[in-house]
């Protein structure tokens, strides 16, 4: 019988059915970080249990790390306490820790792929909703809560209900200036922030076939913003080429066997999908958000919605709530909206290709006066690659503060925060109320190059007007 990737991975990892009808699923790779794991280790100690598979558990520190301070103790004692707890837990339970001294630290969803830990046909869990990122490799990757982290630490399994599968097929070519970020913002805008509840998203079509691994990661990363628990792309030659030679990738004869195995996980032609959505890539424009959830998106040439024109009571109240928070005028163009902060980074867009694309156009340009612009590489390896290519220098000369690797202003658990009701042009993934560290701060999500354009003009701008963008 023809099967989808998720069915094959699910079948290969099913331990047994549980009494309540859920599946006990083996989790091959467990990624942990400092914010959601300390309580889980506490629960493990209470149960007097060891970590079941320490060699399949990998840790890094990302959410709380200061991006302007390397030396410890950190100026924030709470951040230091979380760092210390993770270090202690990893040492005690024999877990590999990519700490800042290793040169391999970074946002957990950037570190896993970079190290070759993220592999096709595997199951991955991490106490972070953006774990869906790893689906770019044809892995089935779940964001989980702390009690489930305990479950995975203790048993290397967790209890899960099956998901439906929606194939999102995007065919055709993107216009110059339109990026993977615009594709996923467009998908979420089209299907809604809760359109994916109960579904896994399979991203397919010739657009995804042509995408690099980093672009696929950007799309899979935001699956959760559309309500989908996981998102994935079927593994192909692009996937294998990315993985070859990475520290945790199989070597020699094992490599050939692994590639053969990985290929076997791709969805079969004619397999069952619970839903299929088709999108023409040429209809996607540079997309930005205007409201307080990632589904409230617009193409940059569109106008801010007017509650008076809403087609339902729900839509009307959600527009009103968003406008009241964002302090935007209904019917006004989103283009030209004044910004205060430009943020480049995050697990969505903090990879080498993101900074490369920005540097290509920022050379010789300057961040507008009065705009605070920060660029935060997603990992120490990304930082190193950028340094080798002189990207850090280009961005610094343009007026960006070039920082140390971490999650930074995506969720502002460190000192990188908006102040008051500042407006941020951000390459991150969430524009919730207060998300970037100020209870009244405002976030406009967009692609990295759109962030660069906003930084130069001081307003939300169309990349195609600010830069002479060429086809990717």
């Amino acid at each position, binding site marked *: 019988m023809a099967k989808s990737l998720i069915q094959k991975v699910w079948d*290969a*990892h*099913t*331990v047994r059915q*549980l*009494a*309540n*009808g*859920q599946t*006990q699923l083996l989790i*091959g790779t467990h990624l942990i970080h400092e*914010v959601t794991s*300390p*309580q889980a280790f*506490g629960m493990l100690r209470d149960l007097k*249990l060891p970590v079941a*598979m320490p060699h*399949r558990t990998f840790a890094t520190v990302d*959410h*709380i790390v200061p991006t302007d301070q390397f030396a410890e103790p950190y100026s924030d004692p709470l*951040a230091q306490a979380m760092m210390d707890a993770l270090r202690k837990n990893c040492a005690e339970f024999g877990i590999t820790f990519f700490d800042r001294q290793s040169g391999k630290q970074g946002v957990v969803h950037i570190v896993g792929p970079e190290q070759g830990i993220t592999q096709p046909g595997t199951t991955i869990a991490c*106490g*972070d*909703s953006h774990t869906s990122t790893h689906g770019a490799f044809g892995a089935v990757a779940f*964001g*989980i*809560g*702390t*009690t*489930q982290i*305990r*479950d995975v630490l*203790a*048993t290397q*399994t*967790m*209890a899960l*209900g099956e998901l439906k599968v929606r194939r999102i097929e995007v065919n055709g070519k993107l216009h110059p200036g339109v990026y993977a970020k615009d594709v996923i913002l467009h998908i979420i805008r089209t299907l809604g*922030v*809760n359109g994916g*509840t109960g579904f896994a998203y399979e991203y397919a079509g010739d657009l995804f076939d042509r995408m690099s691994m980093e672009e696929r990661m950007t799309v899979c990363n935001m699956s*959760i913003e559309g*309500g989908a*628990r996981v998102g994935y792309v079927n593994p192909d030659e692009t996937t294998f080429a990315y993985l070859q030679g990475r520290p945790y990738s199989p070597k020699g004869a*094992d490599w050939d*066997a*692994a590639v053969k195995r990985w290929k076997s996980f791709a969805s079969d032609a004619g397999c069952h999908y619970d839903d299929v959505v088709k999108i023409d890539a040429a209809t996607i424009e540079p997309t930005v958000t205007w409201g307080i*959830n990632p589904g409230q998106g617009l193409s940059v040439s569109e106008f801010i919605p007017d509650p008076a024109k809403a087609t339902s009571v*729900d839509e009307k109240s*959600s527009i009103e*709530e968003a406008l009241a928070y964002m302090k935007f005028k209904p019917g006004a163009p989103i283009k030209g909206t004044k910004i205060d902060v430009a943020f480049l980074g995050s697990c969505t867009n903090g990879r080498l290709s993101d900074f490369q694309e920005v540097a290509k156009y920022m050379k010789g340009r300057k961040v507008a006066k009065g705009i605070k612009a920060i660029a935060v590489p997603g990992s120490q390896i990304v930082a190193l690659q950028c340094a080798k290519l002189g990207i850090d220098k280009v961005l610094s000369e343009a007026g960006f503060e070039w920082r140390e690797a971490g999650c930074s202003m995506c*969720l502002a*658990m460190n000192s990188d925060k908006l102040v008051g009701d500042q407006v941020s042009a951000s390459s991150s993934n*969430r524009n*919730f*109320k*207060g*998300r970037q*560290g100020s*209870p009244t701060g405002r976030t406009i999500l967009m692609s990295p190059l759109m962030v660069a354009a906003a930084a130069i003009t001081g307003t939300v701008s169309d990349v195609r007007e600010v830069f002479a963008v060429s086809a990717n």
Partner: protein
Amino acid sequence: MALAKITQVSGRAVCVSGNDIDTDRIIPARFMKCVSFDGLGEFLFYDVRKNEDGSNKPHPLNESRFNGATILLSGANFGCGSSREHAPQAIQKYGFRAVIAENYAEIFFGNSTTLGMPCLCASREDIAKIAAAVQANPQLEVVLDVVAQEVRFGGQTIKTTQRESARDALINGRWDSIGELIDGKDAVAKLAKTLPYLAA
């Protein structure tokens, strides 16, 4: 590991209305700088409840007449966003024992169930009926019946729905699956041998 069978939650209710209430709103990220969940309750909905100087904003949870409510009412897609268990933990630590909303984001729902906090779904109209009744009389006892899948209050009864696996887990006292997962140890070891990438 004997767990309580959660068949019914009864108590007073309060409505925090709105759709797409995300986990950042339920518990802002800055309060997650902790190595324990204790004490999260006081920061529940902090930024919508408090001004920057710490004074109260108008919010149902700031109204003394709703003090002691144990059932939280809300709208659609409740708990969307981050996977932080800090969100249901904050709700529970604040004193809530159950949530009734139109529907829930996936991860939030799973996290809540694992904590033994029923999250039942009801239609908007029915939630509005409960909200109106408790608005008129905050002392009204609301009985949420997980077994019968209904909510009874002031002589009215409304129907609720819930994913069967969650309902089963709650009413049979197996909402925390750790015991069952540990019991599968031998089957896990056997399966792990079939997956080359798990080799030590």
